[in-house]
């Protein structure tokens, strides 16, 4: 209930993330749901602490794993698959499986009734105290199943009032349910917006089901974009934070996403998450069958970079499945199947959860301090380009530290380093290199492909074979910063790298592009 009354409060003080001015509640009432443009500085606020985010907004998102890049290392979320129906068709989605933008195609979630869902959430929250967020993201559309979605929220609020609620929608039904959303204290909504121009939209959406009719083509896309924009404005007017997801589809909306970014920013969206299209032929989606490719890592980063300075960008999305459980990038859903939940003794201990979360908070502060210290120690070197930027890959099991064996990594976190900054820019999933202690040499090329744009890979430990192969590929394996905080380790390595360039020991070379691994994310 801690978010019960702050809608109006944050609305009245909700200030530009970067350039947007949102009308205060009283004015909004007289001028509709409008937003006005304004001044402000550009930044990627969610990546590094509060940045220029207003205090009220930061307070709401700082512990939300899907919204704060720092928090996603420490807090967990879960999704419950109570919403199987959808009211639109997307060309990147095959409804025999889950929706492919909120979750992965080819992965089927276990459908739950609202009662089963609430039981599952309480069981998980008792077992995993860092679980702070429940989302309803499908497998269809949360608002195409309004009764199931809102029944789940209502019952959960009665049993576990400290859990934050959020939902994802394509936006078609959104204007009809904004009041209901506000009623259940859902203070975070995600809308998937892939276009603001029906000419682009008709290439993505073959049809929608709206007002008891199936509508096709450009007319369908026009209705969809109008409903999305109206819904976003209505949420903003009520002080409900809205994140926008966009699927980057090369050749269809890659250049257009810049316009989408500006349009959603001007209507008050606080975060924009640009995700790569996933279109494997075996998923049976239209794009999979027509051979529409997804973007490379560089293409994705280029679009994300072009949109920086607009709505804040989110780069840590894992496109997890609709019944995912755990920290982003991990999936513990197998531990919480219906059968297992039935057998669990569940005691919901609010105090225990709070105590754990305080511990996490202290750890997080140390991580932040380590980064600040490392930045202040950064060297100013002659003979080295001060604007040099490099990417490094990091193997981590969490807690914000370089603490994973190269062979155990199923994903690498990617940081962009300059002399004065370490910025998280994304993650790369890879096939597990080391299975049961034996390195699988044939996996290494795919790992190299996934981090081929990086100059170094920071790990807790690495075997001799992969070490040599990485070196041969021009990626420096680094294990001397094992168990240090990630940003500190990365910046220390970069200082060392620049020193070696300054001394003439090595020459700086630019790296190539990297591949985004297709297929479903699975726990190792």
């Amino acid at each position, binding site marked *: 209930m801690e978010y019960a009354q702050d809608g109006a409060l944050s609305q009245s003080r909700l200030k530009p993330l970067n350039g947007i001015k949102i009308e205060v509640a009283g004015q909004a009432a007289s001028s509709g749901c409008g937003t006005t443009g304004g001044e402000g500085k550009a930044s990627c606020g969610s990546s590094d602490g509060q940045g220029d985010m207003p205090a009220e907004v930061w307070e709401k998102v700082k512990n939300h794993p899907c919204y704060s890049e720092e928090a996603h290392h420490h807090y967990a979320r879960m999704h419950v698959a109570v919403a*199987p*129906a*959808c*009211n639109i*068709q997307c060309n990147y989605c095959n*409804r*025999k499986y889950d929706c492919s933008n909120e979750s992965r195609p080819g992965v089927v979630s276990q*459908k739950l009734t609202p009662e089963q869902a609430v039981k599952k959430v309480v069981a998980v929250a008792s077992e995993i105290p860092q679980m702070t967020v429940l989302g309803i993201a499908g*497998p*269809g559309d949360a608002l*195409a*199943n309004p*009764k199931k979605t809102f029944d789940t929220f209502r019952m959960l609020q009665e049993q576990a009032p400290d859990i934050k609620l959020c939902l994802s929608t394509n936006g078609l039904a959104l204007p009809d349910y904004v009041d209901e959303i506000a009623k259940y204290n859902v203070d975070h909504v995600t809308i998937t917006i892939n276009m603001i121009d029906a000419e682009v939209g008709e290439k993505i959406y073959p049809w929608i*089901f709206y007002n*008891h*009719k*199936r509508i096709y083509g450009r007319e369908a896309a026009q209705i969809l974009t109008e409903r999305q924009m109206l819904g976003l404005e209505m949420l903003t007017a009520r002080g409900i934070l809205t994140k926008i997801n966009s699927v980057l589809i090369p050749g269809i909306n890659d250049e257009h996403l810049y316009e989408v970014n500006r349009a959603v920013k001007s209507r008050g969206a606080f975060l924009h998450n640009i995700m790569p299209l996933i279109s494997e032929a075996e998923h049976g989606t239209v794009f999979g069958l027509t051979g529409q490719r997804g973007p490379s890592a560089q293409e994705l980063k280029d679009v994300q970079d072009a949109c920086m300075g607009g709505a804040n960008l989110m780069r840590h999305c894992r496109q997890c499945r609709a019944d995912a459980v755990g920290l982003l990038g991990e999936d513990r859903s197998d531990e919480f199947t219906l059968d297992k939940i039935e057998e669990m003794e569940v005691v919901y201990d609010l105090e225990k959860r709070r105590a754990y979360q305080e511990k996490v908070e202290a750890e997080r502060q140390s991580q932040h301090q380590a980064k600040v210290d490392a930045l202040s120690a950064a060297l100013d070197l002659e003979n080295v380009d001060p604007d040099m930027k490099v990417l490094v890959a990091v193997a981590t099991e969490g807690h914000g530290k370089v603490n994973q064996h190269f062979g155990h990594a199923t994903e690498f976190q990617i940081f962009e380093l300059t002399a004065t900054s370490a910025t998280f820019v994304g993650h790369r999933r890879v096939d597990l290199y080391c299975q049961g202690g034996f390195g699988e040499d044939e996996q290494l090329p795919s790992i190299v492909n996934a981090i081929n744009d990086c100059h170094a890979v920071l790990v807790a430990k690495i075997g001799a074979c992969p070490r040599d192969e990485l070196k041969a590929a021009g990626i420096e394996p680094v294990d001397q910063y094992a168990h240090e905080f990630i940003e500190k380790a990365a910046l220390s390595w970069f200082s060392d790298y620049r020193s070696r360039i300054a001394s003439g020991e090595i020459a700086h070379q630019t790296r190539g592009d990297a591949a985004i691994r297709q297929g479903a994310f699975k726990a190792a």
Partner: protein
Amino acid sequence: MAYKIVGSQCTGCSACEPECPNQAIYEKNGVFFIKPEKCTECIGHFDEAQCVAACPVDNTCIIDNAYPRYQAA
């Protein structure tokens, strides 16, 4: 006088169920069925059959030829 759902194609998504003006659709073991005696093919309610329009899989809600076409009263 009725539509039927091709069970092997039904994804169990439930999109059709709340759209039916006759409450003719029900679920059993994860897939959906239409009670033929309740189905009016949406005649008198909507221009198109709602289950057909809402269903994400083409040719899954189809006319059941075992019954004569529905005649509005």
